[in-house]
């Protein structure tokens, strides 16, 4: 098991405390003190499970603004996929062609891979089942509602769209 490190505890504490303030939304000194104590306890316990590498990687203007831009890129992909899925559902659910494809990922970092996998799962029409590593390259197994490409590279381009490039920018 990993050791508890101070930067990890600090960043977990900041996250917990921000959440406390957002949920209570009162700025009396008593509430803030109670929040600080609870956040510190939670951070001491959870930091070693929660953060494994650099703790303040997102505190960096280029990465932060890439993250903000990614929200809009992702919303665009989400709306496109949702319209497609709603069309299939209202059309009687007969217009489907499901299958599981194996798709290569070009992101080196574990966080970035997890983020892309979750983004793909959130997009209606694709669910990431598993990640595998073969010969130093990572692959996703993705259940796809409408398999229009069986070639790995082309299927990857169709599923990942612009998301992979932007996530790469965030975690570079």
């Amino acid at each position: 098991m990993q050791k508890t490190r101070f930067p990890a505890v600090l960043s977990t504490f900041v996250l917990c405390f921000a959440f406390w303030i957002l949920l209570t939304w009162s700025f009396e000194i008593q509430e803030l003190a109670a929040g600080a104590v609870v956040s510190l306890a939670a951070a001491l316990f959870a930091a070693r499970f929660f953060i494994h590498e650099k703790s303040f990687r997102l505190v960096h203007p280029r990465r932060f603004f890439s993250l903000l831009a990614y929200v809009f890129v992702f919303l665009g992909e989400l709306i496109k996929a949702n319209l497609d899925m709603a069309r299939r559902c209202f059309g009687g659910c007969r217009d489907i062609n499901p299958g599981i494809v194996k798709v290569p990922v070009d992101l080196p970092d574990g966080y970035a891979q997890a983020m892309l996998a979750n983004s793909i799962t959130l997009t209606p029409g694709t669910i990431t089942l598993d990640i595998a590593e073969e010969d130093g390259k990572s692959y996703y197994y993705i259940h796809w509602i409408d398999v229009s490409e069986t070639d790995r590279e082309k299927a990857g381009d169709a599923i990942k769209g612009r998301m992979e490039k932007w996530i790469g920018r965030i975690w570079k």
Partner: protein
Amino acid sequence: MALRIVIDVLIAIGAIFALAGTIGLLKMPDTFSRMQASTCISTMGVIGVALGALLYAIFIMNSASTAIKIAVIALLIITVNPIGAHTIAKGAYRAGIRPEKRMETDDYGRDLEDE
């Protein structure tokens, strides 16, 4: 007045996508396709309704704490949902659930057999 129309339209959009997801959930032929359809509910359904509720809380209720709670709820649903969806789908596949109709391609099943 215009604001109320915007709010109503946003909530209606959310409801329409939730309806689409529900129809898919009932009518899709196999487990994985049903999960795909249900993703519609937890993304566009939640985003539409939450945006409408957020505008309502900010401009009509004038309550910052309600607005922030709505934003946090939407954020939590959207960040936590894919983890559950991925785990359920993987678990279902590993437990031996397969679609009745043959799948177009099944790389996962092939690689699992190789192990």
